[in-house]
């Protein structure tokens, strides 16, 4: 499978924060969820991919091309949705069409208005009167209407109600159905990604802690619960993190079947992505 996006050894340093040795591969026809706390480095990673910030070192390739020398060509094929930035709210969907048809070579006016109709957005009203969900749908319609091959989305579901969130997740799923398109979506709402992402990449403190398929995470990872006596017998290399509660100890294990076979522990739960994330951040080694 061809990689639409490939990041190698990406580093970017700020005062008090460092994006450190980020390596990432996004295959064609898949959705990757970028998860992590606020300030973990998700947005910085997306900004680096888009070249809106200057990276210190590393290589970023999109569609097999390096961003440095092919920026315009690459950006023609990317649809971008940013959480906190879009065109002015004093513009109507009709205005946006007038602007974008000059900007993108492949801008598809017909497709754009089909999305506007599908999302039930008023064509001639300024978006400042739109609800958060409507504003997000307008951003997505704009991002999709030049037939991009890759969607880069920074927190597209934050602040939305469950129904609007569901609608938006369906759009992403539909987008990759042709097997050629891909999506990279950052979110701190991990439950959204549990439904749609093929790959989950977890960033913490500027470093990638894990990057695995959703199945690997949800089916193989486990949270074992054991007593203090049982815990003392467990080899430190057999669990990733542990969390000591009042009555028991929770262990995050990479392969719950293997762990179960080795140790006689009965309760091993199937964790959610959120639980894995919390164990990684809050747990002890």
């Amino acid at each position: 499978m061809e990689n639409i996006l490939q990041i190698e050894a990406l580093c970017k340093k700020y005062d008090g924060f460092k994006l450190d040795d980020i390596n990432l591969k996004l295959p064609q026809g898949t959705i990757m969820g970028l998860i992590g706390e606020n300030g973990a480095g998700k947005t910085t990673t997306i900004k680096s991919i888009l070249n809106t910030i200057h990276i210190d070192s590393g290589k970023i390739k999109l569609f097999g091309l390096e961003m440095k020398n092919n920026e315009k060509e690459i950006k023609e094929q990317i649809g971008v949705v940013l959480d906190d930035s879009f065109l002015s709210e004093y513009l109507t969907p009709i205005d946006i069409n007038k602007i974008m048809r000059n900007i993108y070579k492949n801008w598809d006016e017909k497709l754009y208005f089909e999305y506007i109709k599908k999302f039930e957005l008023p064509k001639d009203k300024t978006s400042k009167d739109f609800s958060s969900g409507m504003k997000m749908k307008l951003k997505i319609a704009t991002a999709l209407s030049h037939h991009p091959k890759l969607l880069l989305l920074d927190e597209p579901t934050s602040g939305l109600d469950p129904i609007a969130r569901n609608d938006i997740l369906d759009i992403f799923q539909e987008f990759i159905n042709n097997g050629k398109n891909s999506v990279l979506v950052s979110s701190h709402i991990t439950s959204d990604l549990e439904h749609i992402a093929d790959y989950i990449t977890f960033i913490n403190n500027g470093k990638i802690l894990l990057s695995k398929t959703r199945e690997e995470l949800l089916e193989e990872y486990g949270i074992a619960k054991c007593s203090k006596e049982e815990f003392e017998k467990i080899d430190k290399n057999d669990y990733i993190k542990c969390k000591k509660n009042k009555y028991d100890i929770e262990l995050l294990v990479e392969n719950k079947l293997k762990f179960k076979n080795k140790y006689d522990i009965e309760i091993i739960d199937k964790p959610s992505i959120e639980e894995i994330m919390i164990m990684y951040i809050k747990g002890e080694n």
Partner: protein
Amino acid sequence: MNIIKGLIVKDLLQLKSYRKTLIIFIVIMFIFSVMNQQQTEMINIFSMMLILGFGMFGIATFSYDEMSKADKYIMTLPITRKQIVLSKYILIIGATIIGGILGGIISFAIYYIMNQQIIDIQYLLYILIGEMFGIGLIQSIEIPCIYKYGAEKGRFFVFFITFLIVFLIGGIFFLYKKIVMPMENFNFIKENLKFILENYMPVILIASTIIFYWVSYMISKKIYSKKEL
């Protein structure tokens, strides 16, 4: 070129509300000018206000972009940073020139309506060129300041720097008058300077305005190429 057109269309569309204000402003100024007895002076002020108003129209787009944080999004589109800066200069310089032309036409009309005679065209052109030079100078300082410090902070810097320039120019004139003028040895230079200023002033002003804008564009381009959004 299409991309630059797209960016200018964006700026013009998002200034819809400003357009109304500008038209009301022109109408009020027009009425005020017609009613005033001192026509010639009013024409000077009227044309200057128009150039200033139209120039501000372009500068106001920075505030709109800042409010919606549009810069960050625009950078994700297939547009180079150079094109983003160039589109702003085209818009601002274009708006200022349109302001100047409109100012000239309306001033001409006011003078004709009130006096039933044609205004001295050379005088009107000198006024317009002088005003465009002044406003061009301010904009040339203002735009790089906005790129460096943002639309709000940039405005503070422009007041400071404009004050400094006025002070400097005033200082140079003062020194010239007090020190160079009384000196007899410099008569040759003084004569030549007087000749150049009297005959080539408009050309000097136009050339200086173009140079100011060009230097300003080069500085803005450099600032924006390093900017992280």
